């Protein structure tokens, strides 16, 4: 099966500091791909390159089998790539519907088409089987951390997106809310989306992912099927870049 999104040979430097070395990464439709790595391994940079926030120095992005240019967040959005950042970027003083449509409001002439927006938002939440919010006209300030994450994810899904990238969605959540969000992540993939999950939490990674991509010091140490590896192997890949036959060969890391 060809991947929906593929990054090939990505190089990225910030001034003299080379952050990504020849990174190859792929995400498949209907699967959750976990992107793991230690702090500073380049996870966020890679995601921002895919999302068009940072221009890439070298390499190419292939989407649905054809090479594409992503020169800004708008390009990424048009391809159907949505990123849910860690800080969620929600307006506390607006309600759920207003947040989901922020910047892309439906209008009839000059007037906002609230009813259509409300219907679409409700459909999206239903399609994700979200049952945790009381009313979609609730202000975001009244929501819990897990509910906020749910709204942010639903916002990303609303736009016929094909790839959803989640940056540490469970980092700030309690046990029950983490379970809720992970369930939602799984459901996104089951709905046919390619999901990329950045996480530090091995339990989360093993709970929902189909594949694991481990970055080590800006290089892709290995991209493997979750079923083929153990917890310990992944930790080794993260901390030393190799684990037995897996990972970077000797000399690859200078």
């Amino acid at each position, binding site marked *: 099966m060809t991947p929906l999104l593929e990054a090939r040979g990505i190089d990225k430097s910030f001034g003299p500091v080379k952050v990504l070395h020849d990174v190859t990464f792929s995400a498949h439709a209907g699967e959750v791909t976990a992107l793991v790595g230690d702090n500073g391994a380049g996870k966020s940079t890679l995601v921002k390159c895919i999302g068009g926030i940072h221009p890439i120095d070298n390499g190419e992005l292939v989407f649905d089998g054809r090479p594409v240019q992503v020169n800004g967040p708008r390009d990424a959005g048009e391809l159907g790539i949505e990123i849910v950042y860690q800080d969620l970027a929600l307006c*506390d003083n607006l309600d759920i519907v207003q947040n989901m449509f922020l910047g892309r409001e439906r209008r009839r002439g*000059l007037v906002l088409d609230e009813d259509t927006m409300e219907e679409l938002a409700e459909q999206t939440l239903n399609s994700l089987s979200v049952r945790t919010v009381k009313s979609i006209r609730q202000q975001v300030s009244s929501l819990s951390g897990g509910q906020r994450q749910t709204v942010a994810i639903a916002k990303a899904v609303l736009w016929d997106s094909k790839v959803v990238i989640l940056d540490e969605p469970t980092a700030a959540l309690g046990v029950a809310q983490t379970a809720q969000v992970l369930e939602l992540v799984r459901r996104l993939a089951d709905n046919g989306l390619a999901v990329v999950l950045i996480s530090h939490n091995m339990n989360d990674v093993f709970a929902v992912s189909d594949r694991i991509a481990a970055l080590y010091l800006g290089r892709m140490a290995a991209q493997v099927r979750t079923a083929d590896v153990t917890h310990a192997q992944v930790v080794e890949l993260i901390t030393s870049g190799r684990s037995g036959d897996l990972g970077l060969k000797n000399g690859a890391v200078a």
Partner: protein
Amino acid sequence: MSKVKELPGEAVATAVRSPSIAHSARAYTERVRAGDMGALPAVLGLLVLCTAFALARPAFLTAINFANLFTQGAAITVIAMGLVFVLLIGEIDLSAGFTSGVCAAVLAVTLTNMGLPWYVGVLAAIVTGAVIGTVLGAIVAKVGIPSFVVTLAAFLAFQGLVLVLVNEGTNISINDPVIKAVAQRNLPPALGWALYAACVLAYAGLQVVRARKRAARGLVADPPSLIATRVGALAVLAGGAVYALNLERSFNPAFASLKGVPIVVPVILALLVVWTFVLRRTAFGRHVYAVGGNAEAARRAGIAVDRIRVSAFVICSAMAAVGGIVAASRASSVDPNTGGSSVLLYAVGAAVIGGTSLFGGKGRVLDAVLGGAVIAVIDNGMALMQYGSSVKYLVTGFVLLLAAGVDALARKRAAAAGLR
């Protein structure tokens, strides 16, 4: 009563199709408890103040004094309406008072010194306001100087500009009958009632149509009982006001009759409707709230944040110009003190007392009207009690602090409720 009880954490978004009045009332009390008090402090304050003044000075309740309240509070209310936009994006405009002075002076110069017709004067004043707003907004948004400093500088500079326009301190009188009518003349009683009927019917019609449309699409709609309550409340309150304003207020009616709704009332109503529509029903309004709530989220959502910021300042200064026109109309003249002294603080006070947050993201144009009413009642009542300016300033200052305190505490409370 809706049969669907929300099971905690399990209630579906689609559960309550048509909430009852009791449900709405409960939702409202919950909101107030969580710190989102909206207009409640202003309405309660208005009731307390009116009762106190009515008991202390029966003259407070006379028809003539009631009409005075409207003309006294009009200019401040209009300026406060504009300030709501700037406060919504989390900025402040300390120069709005003297902006109104500058624009009033432009009006006076155009009308009296140049002898041009009233509409040219009004246009010149509003364009002046818009230009001032563009400059202030551009400095705040593009250069990045805090609005507090920019508008404080403008506050001083505009004081000088007014002096230049009125030739270092002369008083320019305004004799144009149209301009003077705005704050000095009244609608004929019959027209007042016609306007009243039109407003109540339009409000009722809009509510019913909206509820029908939503119900037809299977969305949560306001129940008929709630709509009836709202429309009834409006009809009673506005009806009482129109009735009182249509009473004879002249001491010698045979000589000159004085009755009817002051013309400035429909002017304020029209501004209220227009700006409420802009804030609540257009994408621009939504983006104003978004910028005030989380500018970074707005930027990532593709909203031109700087453009929204500048627009808010343009609206604020243009509305200050309208406020200046109303003030000039009431005084029949413009002098170096027009828009000066306490005008700005009263206007900011009106917006904040009404429930607009100084921290951005929360507020309505209606707040300016409610808060303006509170300010007008204090100003008027204290004068009737024959307290001097000293006490008046002290009390108004205290009320402003109280309102800002309520705002800050409500915010804390809302934050605490949000974390639960």
